[in-house]
């Protein structure tokens, strides 16, 4: 457990450093995720090793967004006069994005004949 967390934090730290040194427009954890993924390809045993801990972390991923969510409530008044317009834009845009993503995935999948294994 401690070893697993250490590995995750090391990759996150590496990601943060890489983002700053290379001036990448990506958050450190996303770079860390990509680096860990590459490490799994090179050393498949590593994935098996840390899986017990990552399972627990990912099972409650929703919880981790609660503090940021609470922060948002305090800023809702900043939307003020534009509240309804922004609400329509967010709901409308999210629905359209999901539809565009799913539609394109299925359509192109059919065109290139990508089947599920």
């Amino acid at each position, binding site marked *: 457990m401690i070893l697993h967390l250490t590995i*995750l*934090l090391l*990759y*996150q730290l590496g990601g943060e450093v890489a983002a700053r040194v290379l001036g990448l*427009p*990506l*958050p450190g*954890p*996303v770079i*860390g*995720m990509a680096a*860990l*993924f590459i490490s*799994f*390809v090179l050393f498949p045993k590593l*994935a098996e090793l*840390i899986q017990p801990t990552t*399972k627990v*972390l*990912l099972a409650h991923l*929703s*919880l*981790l*967004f*609660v*503090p*940021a*969510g*609470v*922060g*948002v*409530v*305090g*800023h809702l008044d*900043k939307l003020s006069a*534009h509240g*309804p*317009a*922004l609400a*329509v*834009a*967010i*709901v*409308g*845009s*999210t629905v359209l*994005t*999901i539809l*565009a*993503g*799913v*539609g*394109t*995935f*299925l359509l192109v*999948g059919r065109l*290139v004949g*990508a089947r*599920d*294994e």
Partner: protein
Amino acid sequence: MNDVTQIWSYLAQDPLLWLTLTLVSYVIGDAAFRAAGRRPLVNPVLIAVALLAIMLRVTETEYATYFEGAQFIHFILGPATVALAVPLYANLGRIRATAVPMLAALVAGSVTAIASSVLIAGWMGVDRAMLLSIAPKSATAPVALGVSEAMGGAPTLTAVMVILTGITGAIVATPLLNLLRIRDYRARGFALGVASHGIGTARAFQVNETAGAFAGVGMGLNAVLTALIAPLLAPWLIGLVSGLN
């Protein structure tokens, strides 16, 4: 009576109180989600946030005080994002098999997210600074905030849009896609990750691991693509909308 006040004033300044209450609120939200037959409308994040917002209002607690306790949970977001590499790797074969449709869906979803939010809000009379703040809303928070700031938007406002977009996607995806009878959980998860970043990915993991893994890929790829195209697309779209108004 005096004792109660004293205990409260001690606890109110201690990280333990709000850390515990954050977990308690989430446990309540999660219990409600399960009791409602895991219906997406009963979103555990939304319930926990609402409960905590009420508690903060009633006790007149500042967000900064709250965050001293909640930061321990917030912090785990970093390692949890890194941990997404595990389901990604576990689904490597299936992800590789769908690389082409996935990249096409990424471009379609990412462009739609930016264009539709700017165009809809713009048509409804929202000003330029707010449009720049809403444009990167589908990307994961740190990317969206950075992009917004670089374009001249307001990062605080972007944070609000990002979270609301995440919760919206988590709530609407299942009923919307069930209505359309789409059963491919690779497509469903991926589109939700692109549209609603980490909160959508968390929701996808509630559905099944396939959806979760594909959502994680969608989130990661859209973070990259939004960072690249939002600064090019958003100002152009805003010019387009203001020309029409």
